[in-house]
């Protein structure tokens, strides 16, 4: 049954023309079902706003309520919620503009998905001259990203009963009230649903919180508070602070106990020249880990060494790692997956870090950072930011959108990415096994790596197996290694590997939930499809 919608708008001193556009966008909905627009004026003082609201044509579906005194956006929003009578509430800021088909699309979605409780869409930005630009094509629900920043923003529709059960908007969260509500909803419902269409145009103006977040310092501090409160309710022990990027929250999780991390590092002692100096890759990979002393974890190094490898490799490893080193001799023909499986079979740690030998730790504390995330029962695997020798991005999470690739391949290593996607922890379709951490019991439960994929795509297969088992995969920018892949990898993709990955995961590879159907397939840089990049609409 098509739900009745209540659009909630709290108003306080917007530009009158922006408010007018907002109200007009509701009036021009193509939706033919039942809806109401509950407008709460939070004692606006601008004469233009007051006269606009006073002069509104009386309409059966619009109610304008007035607060006697300004109480802030939370108080006004709660008043609107109390006055609402619909089945589903739709949040609309006083200067934003609904797409004409917004309610119709929501209605279609709720009709088709009767158990949906929270639905959000994509949006774009509305410039001062009413031009649309910078479409934001969101991923499907990404809890970890939502914790790091409110990537959803608008348009959000939620069952009114659920929001009322939660007690409405939280007093004291003004400016971060939407983020707070979304986080509390995320604690309550299984998932949020996503309509990958632009159903809202988000006004960029100085009177809303959509302007430069840096100028909204108070709101930013409240973001930190609401995320900290959310993590507390979820039983996640973490320090929460402002991150370097505006609007992004930094979550530093505590590591419980002092777990052992078994670093499984297959090697055949490959040498190469990095920054002008010859090195045995595995020596520097292990040395960089052990040089980063971290009291939160214990490290166990498990080197899976191919037979025939120069003995100097093992001797050097023993000198570097001492008692922390365990060696697994590998006498079979090259098979990366099998080598990893044999290494994990020898591991004793609660966590296993799968690590290529052609790596070097960049960011201190990376392993503990990954352990902090992997402690969550529903997280199956954690990936890291990997950089090429020149500091450009080798791995920003896997992307299975028209091709199997690494997101933002070749971008500057410290680039925040579009909509800060590279500056936040987020769920990914998969991560590379060049540096991936799992709880050992998860690795064993899913049966380890697929030995039918000896050289390529084994990490894709591992990722999809982890997700198929119901776990989330999280990529974090706060764990980082150099990965000198081009200098050491010489296994071209075999047709049998392509056949195997398509046989096993063809359906999954056709839909990456953390990309968006409006983005160009085969691209790794979030380029939009033609006509969807924000060019002036015709």
């Amino acid at each position, binding site marked *: 049954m098509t739900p009745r919608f209540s659009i909630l708008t709290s108003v306080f001193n917007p530009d009158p023309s922006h408010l007018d556009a907002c109200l007009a966008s509701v009036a021009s909905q193509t939706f033919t079902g039942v809806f109401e627009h509950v407008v709460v004026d939070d004692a606006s003082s601008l004469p233009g706003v007051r006269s606009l609201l006073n002069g509104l044509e009386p309409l059966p579906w619009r109610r304008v309520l007035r607060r006697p005194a300004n109480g802030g956006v939370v108080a006004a929003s709660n008043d609107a919620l109390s006055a609402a009578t619909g089945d589903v509430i739709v949040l609309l800021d006083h200067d934003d503009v609904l797409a004409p088909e917004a309610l119709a699309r929501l209605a279609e979605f709720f009709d088709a998905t009767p158990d949906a409780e929270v639905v959000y869409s994509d949006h774009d930005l509305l410039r001062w001259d009413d031009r649309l630009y910078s479409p934001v094509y969101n991923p499907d629900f990404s809890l970890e990203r939502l914790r790091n920043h409110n990537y959803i923003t608008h348009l959000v529709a939620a069952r009114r009963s659920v929001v009322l059960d939660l007690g409405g908007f939280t007093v004291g969260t003004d400016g971060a009230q939407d983020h707070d509500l979304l986080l509390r909803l995320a604690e309550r419902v299984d998932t949020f649903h996503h309509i990958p269409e632009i159903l809202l145009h988000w006004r960029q103006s100085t009177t809303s919180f959509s302007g430069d977040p840096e100028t909204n310092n108070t709101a930013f501090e409240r973001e930190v508070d609401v995320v900290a409160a959310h993590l507390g309710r979820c039983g996640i022990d973490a320090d929460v602070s402002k991150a370097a990027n505006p609007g992004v929250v930094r979550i530093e999780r505590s590591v419980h106990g002092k777990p052992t991390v078994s670093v499984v590092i297959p090697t055949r002692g490959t040498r190469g020249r990095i920054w002008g100096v010859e090195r045995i890759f595995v020596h520097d990979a292990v040395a960089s880990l052990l040089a980063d002393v971290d009291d939160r974890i214990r490290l166990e190094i498990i080197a899976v060494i191919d037979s025939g490898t120069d003995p100097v490799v093992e001797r050097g490893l023993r000198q570097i790692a001492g008692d922390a080193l365990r060696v697994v001799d590998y006498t079979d023909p090259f098979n990366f997956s099998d080598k990893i499986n044999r290494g994990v079979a020898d591991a004793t740690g609660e966590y296993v870090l799968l690590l290529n030998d052609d790596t070097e730790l960049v960011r201190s504390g990376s392993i503990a950072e990954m352990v902090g995330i992997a402690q969550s029962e529903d997280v199956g695997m954690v990936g890291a930011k990997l950089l090429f020798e020149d500091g450009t991005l080798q791995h920003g999470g896997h992307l299975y959108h028209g091709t199997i690739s690494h997101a933002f391949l*070749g971008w500057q290593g410290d680039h925040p990415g579009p909509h800060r996607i590279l500056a936040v922890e987020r769920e990914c379709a998969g991560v590379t096994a060049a540096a991936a951490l799992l709880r050992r019991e998860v690795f064993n439960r899913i049966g380890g790596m697929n030995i039918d994929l000896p050289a390529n795509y084994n990490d894709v297969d591992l990722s999809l197996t982890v997700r198929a088992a119901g776990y989330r995969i999280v990529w974090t920018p706060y764990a980082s290694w150099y990965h000198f892949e081009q200098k050491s990898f010489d296994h071209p993709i075999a047709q049998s590997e392509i056949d195997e990955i398509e046989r096993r995961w063809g359906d999954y590879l056709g839909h990456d939930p953390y990309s968006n159907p409006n983005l160009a397939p085969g691209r790794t840089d979030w380029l939009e499809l033609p006509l969807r990049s924000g060019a002036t609409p015709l």
Partner: protein
Amino acid sequence: MTNVPADAELERLRGLVGPSEMSYEALQADVIEAERVARAAVTEMGELRGRIVELEGHLARARQDQDFLQRRIEMSAWEGVMYRAQRRWRISVVPRMKRLSD
């Protein structure tokens, strides 16, 4: 750089530079400094390379917008009407019909 105190390598280098420990240390310092310089140069190159990759994306976006606008400008009034009707059909009517049929 590999941090392995390899006795044989130490002896080899001492043989090359003579018995003076200072000379060996100076050589080591040279290597470290050379690595630092090489690393900085490679990183600088990477920053430029990364910027180029990002700009390629922006360029692709601008080109597809330009192509679209160019085609739109070159349309006659009648073609414009037909274009809008087809577009409306494609992005609005067809999905709705598909959803209804589902």
